[in-house]
C-alpha cells in the first residue's frame, strides 16, 4: 500500500524519484551450510541439496557440499540413507511420502550434525482456477489465482506457486516460477480462500498457466512468509533470515508437503480459458 502511495505522489507531483544500482561495502560472511530438503505425497525419489553460502559480490556459482551423510526417516521406523548422485545433490531410494507421517532429516557434514522434522499434512483440493486483470496507472497486471476450501477447526498452512508454459514453441520454456505465495487460515478458517500467485516476469497472451498448492506445516509457513516479509522486503526495519527448522544454525529448510495441481488455463485476448 505504501508503495502505491509513494508512486501516486511521484506521479502527481512529477518529481523525479530515481533508482540506480550501487555497490556497497559489505561485511563478508560465507561458508554456512545451506540445506534444501523436500519430501511430498507424490512418488519419489526425493532430493536434498547441500551447498555453502558465499559472499554477496561472489559470482553466482553454487558451492556444493559433497561427502555428507544424509538420512531421511519417518515416525513408523522407515529409514533411508541418501546417495549423492551429483556434487551436493543427494537422493532417496526407498522411503515414501505418506500423509500423516512425521519425517526427520539428519545431515552429518564436516563433523557437524544437523537435524530437522516436518509433518506431511493432508492435501487440500483446488476448487477453481482463474485470472484477474487489474488496471493500475495505465498498466494491466495479470494475476492468476486459485480458490480452495480451508478445512474448518484446524490451523492450516499453504504455499502456492505458478508454472508458466509458453504456447509458441520458439520461446524458452519458463516452467516453475520462483515466487512463492505462503497462505494461512488465521483470518479465514473453514471458508473459501482465494490466493493469487505471481510470475517472475510479464505474462503474455497464449501463455499456459498452472498453479500448484502445497499443504505445509507451520514451521515452513513461517519460513516462506518471513522470507517474503522480512528477508526480501525493502520496507522492513529489521531484515533477517527466515527461521530455519534445521538445527545447528544451518540455512534452508526441510519440508514435507502434500501437493495438488490446478487445471491448465490459457491467456487469450478475451481473458483466459481452461484447456482440461
Amino acid at each position, binding site marked *: 500500500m*505504501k508503495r*502505491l*502511495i*509513494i508512486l*501516486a*505522489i511521484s506521479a*502527481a*507531483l512529477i*518529481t*523525479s524519484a*530515481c*533508482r*540506480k544500482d*550501487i*555497490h*556497497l561495502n*559489505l*561485511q563478508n*560472511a560465507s561458508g*554456512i551450510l*545451506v540445506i*534444501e530438503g523436500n519430501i511430498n505425497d507424490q512418488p519419489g525419489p526425493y532430493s536434498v541439496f547441500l*551447498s*555453502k553460502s*558465499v*559472499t*554477496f559480490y561472489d559470482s*553466482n556459482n*553454487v558451492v556444493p557440499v559433497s561427502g555428507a551423510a544424509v538420512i531421511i526417516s519417518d515416525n513408523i521406523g522407515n529409514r533411508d540413507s541418501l546417495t549423492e548422485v551429483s556434487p551436493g545433490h543427494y537422493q532417496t531410494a526407498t522411503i515414501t511420502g505418506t500423509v500423516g507421517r512425521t519425517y526427520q532429516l539428519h545431515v552429518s557434514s564436516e563433523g557437524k550434525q544437523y537435524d530437522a522434522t516436518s509433518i506431511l499434512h493432508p492435501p487440500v483440493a483446488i476448487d477453481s482456477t482463474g485470472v*484477474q486483470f*487489474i*488496471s493500475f*496507472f*495505465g498498466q494491466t497486471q495479470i494475476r492468476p489465482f486459485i480458490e480452495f476450501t480451508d478445512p474448518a477447526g484446524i490451523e492450516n498452512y499453504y504455499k502456492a506457486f505458478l508454472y508458466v508454459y509458453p504456447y509458441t514453441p520458439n520461446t524458452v520454456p*519458463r516452467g516453475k516460477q*520462483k515466487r512463492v505465495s505462503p497462505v494461512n487460515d488465521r*483470518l*479465514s478458517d473453514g*471458508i*473459501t*480462500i482465494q490466493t493469487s500467485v505471481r510470475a517472475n*516476469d510479464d505474462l503474455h497472451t497464449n501463455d499456459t498457466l498452472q498453479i500448484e498448492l502445497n499443504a505445509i506445516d507451520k514451521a515452513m509457513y513461517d519460513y516462506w512468509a*518471513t*522470507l517474503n516479509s*522480512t*528477508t*526480501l522486503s*525493502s*520496507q*522492513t*526495519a*529489521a*531484515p*533477517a*533470515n*527466515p*527461521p530455519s527448522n534445521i538445527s545447528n544454525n544451518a*540455512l*534452508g*529448510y526441510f519440508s514435507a508437503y502434500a501437493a495438488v495441481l490446478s487445471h491448465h488455463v490459457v491467456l487469450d485476448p478475451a481473458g483466459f480459458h481452461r484447456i482440461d
Partner: protein
Amino acid sequence: MRYLKILLSTLAIIFFLPLFAQTKHTISGSIRDAKTGEELIGATVSVKELANTGVATNAYGFYSLTLPAGKYTVQSRYVGYTEFSEEIVLDSSRVININLAPASVQIKQVEVSARRADANVKDAQMSATRLDIKELEKVPVIFGEKDILKTIQLLPGVKSAGEGNSGFYVRGGGADQNLILLDEALVYNASHLLGFFSTFNNDALKDATLYKGNMPAEYGGKLSSVLDIKMKDGNDKTYSVGGGIGIIASRLYVEGPIVKDKGSFIVTGRRTYADVFAKFSKDTSINKSILYFYDINVKANYRLGKKDRIFASGYFGRDKFGLGTTFGIDYGNATATARWNHIINDRLFSNLSFIYNNFSWKVSINTNGLDISIHSIIQDYGLKEDLEYFLDTKNKIKFGAQSTFRSTVPGEITSNTPTLIKPLTLSHTYGWENAIYAQHEVTLWNKVNLNYGLRISSFSVTGPGKNFYFHPSPQPTDTTVLKLGQFGKTYVNPEPRFSLSYNFAKDMSFKAAYSRNTQNIHLLSNTTTSNPTDRWIMTSNNVRPEIADQVSAGYFYNFLNNMFEVSFEGYYKVMQNQIDYIPNAQLRANETVESQLIYGNGRAYGGELFIKKRTGKVTGWVSYTLSRTERKFNEVNNNSWFPARYDRTHDLAIVLMWDITPRINVSATWVYQTGNAVTYASGKYQLNGTWYPYYSFRNQDRFPPYHRLDIGATFVLKKRKIAGREMWEHDLNISFYNVYARQNAYQITFIASDVVTGQLRTEQLALFRVVPSLTYNFKFTYVKKQK
C-alpha cells in the same frame, strides 16, 4: 488527591511562612499585543527600583508580581514590542493590564526571537527551545509548505525521520515517544501523506515550545520530548482574511472579534490539490483516483468579566487516498479542547481543560465485487486542572492533576462476502491514565534558579475486554475477561523532575537537570517509515510502562547584547521496557499482537552545540549533534548493544536568513547527517534455483551520508491601499529543495535482477532531485475609519 494534599502542605510550610513578615501587595493582569489583542506568552514585568525582580507571563498571558508597599516604576518588555513603563504607588493590590505595541512592522520582521532575550541563559529550564512561528516562515522547506515539524529537525538533538518527512526523533527516542500537543490535546499522528507534511498549518499557530527531555512536571505521558503547540486566539480588534496559494496546497484564514476587546475567533483551513490534475488523465485508474488532505483549525475565546475567560478550540484533518475504485484509505485526527481560565485571586491562576482527541483510519478494498473495509480508532477523553501560584518575585508554584480515559478499536474487518473474507472484530481495549504533579520554581541568591517537582503517574487497564498473559510462551498462557468498570493491572510511577541554572557571570550560566518520564501508549511499527495504519497499544499485563531517565548538563552564553546565543549541552539517557518485534511479526488484525513483541533496553548519549545569531540583517544558526543511540534485546545480536536504526553519529544543520532589503529576504539551509544504521546482506545463498541475501547482525551497516542544500526567497510585494488605508499585504515565496540534486538514499534493496541466473543486485532509491516551489501569501485587514 492525598498525595497532593501532603505535597502542598509541605510546600506551604517551607515557603509560605517567611512571607508574612512584611506588608506586601500584588500587581497582576495580562499582557497583550495592542494591535491584535493576542496574549503575549513569556513577556516580562519588572520594577525598575528592585534589581532582579521580574516575572514572565504564563501560557495565557497572565502575570502576578508581589512586592513590598512602595513607589515603583513598572516596566514590561517583550522583544519586538515597545517597552511599557508606568509609575505607581503600591499601597494596595491592583490589576494592571498592559497592551504592548509592536515596535514597527519592519523591525518586527527582522526579530529572530520574540521573547525575553536572556531567558535561555537565566531560566532553570534546559534542553528546551521556544520556536518563533514567524521565523519558520523564512526557512525553506520542501514543496513550499511551511512546517513546524520540519523546522525543529534543524535543531540540535532532533533528527529527521527521513527524506522530506515531518516525523522526528529526539535524543534517541522513537517517533512515538514525542508528546505532540495542540492546545493540550495529544495528536497521535502528526503527519499527512506518509509524513511529507505535518498536520500543523502555520496560519493557525501562535506559539510552540520543544522540550528535549527534562520537561517540567506539568507534562507527562511520553518518553523523549514534548512539543507544546498553542493555537492563535484570533484578533479581538479587527477582522482580517488571509491565506496562500502554493503548488501543493492553498490556505485560508479568517479572524476577528466576537465582541471587540472581549472575545475573538479564528478559523483556518488548508487543502492540497494534487488530485485535481489527475482528473485530466484519460486513464480511469488515474482520473478516478483521489489524493488529498485537509486541515481545519477553529478557536474562539470570550472574557466573562475580569476574572474568567473561556476558550474552545478544535482541529480536524483527514487524508484521503483512493486508487480508482479498487483501494482507498482515509485517516486523520480530531481534537477538541474547552478551557476555563479563572483568576482565583491576584496570585493564584487556574486553568481547567476538557480535552478530547481521536485518531482513526479506514481502508477499503474492492476487487471483483468483493468489498472489504477495515477500520480502527484510538481516542482519549481527558480532564486537566493546572494551578499557578505566584508566591513572590522569587517563588512560583505550579500544581495540578490530569485524568485521561483512553480506548482503542484495534481493527474491525467487515466484508460483503463472508464466505471469502470473514468479518473480524478485535477486542477493544480501555485504559485510565492519571497524574498529579507539583513543582516549585525558586531563585536563590539572585544567581541560581532552581526548578524541582514531582509527577506521579498511574495507568490502569480497565474493562470491558480480554486480557492475555504470554510470558514466557508466545501463545497465551492465561486469559482474563474484565467487565465494564472492572480494573485490571495498575502501574504507578513517580517521576521526579529537577533542573537548575547557575548564572556565574553576566549572560553566562551552567545548567544541570535530571528527569524521569514514563509512557503507557506504544506505537507498533516494524517498517522503515511509519504508516497511518500502524497500531497503538496500551500498557497491559505484558507490555510494561516505558521508563526513561535522563541527566543533562550544559553551558549557556549570550553575547553582544543577546545578539548571539551559544549553548553546549550533554545528555545521557537510559530507557527501559522498549519494544521490538519478532521476525515476520503479525501486527495487523491480530488479537494476540503482544505475542509478536520483544522487550529490551535503550540508551542514548551525546553532545549538542547550538550557535545562533538572533538579530541583525543576517540571522540564523548552526546546530551540531554528536550522539549515539543503542538498544539491547535478548533476542537480537546475542543480547549485545546495537545501534538503533536512527542512530546517526553526526548531525549538522546550518540555517541562514538574510534581509537584503525590508522587502527581500533570502534564506538557505544545509544539512549533513551520518547515514542511518541498517542491516545489509553479508552474503548470499541459493535455494531452489534462487539467490537469497544472508543477514548476520542487525544494524551493523550504514546508509550513505545524507546532505542537502535548500534555498528560498521571499519578496514582500507592495501593500495595496484601499480608500487611503493599508489593507492588502502580500508576498511571494520561492524555494528550491535539494539545490545540487544530491541523490540521497531513501531505500536500498537487495533484489533478484535476473530470472535465469537469479543474480542479486543492490538498488538505491532516491526520492527527490531538485524540487522547486512557489507560494503566494496574502492578508486583507479590515480597518475601520478613524473618527
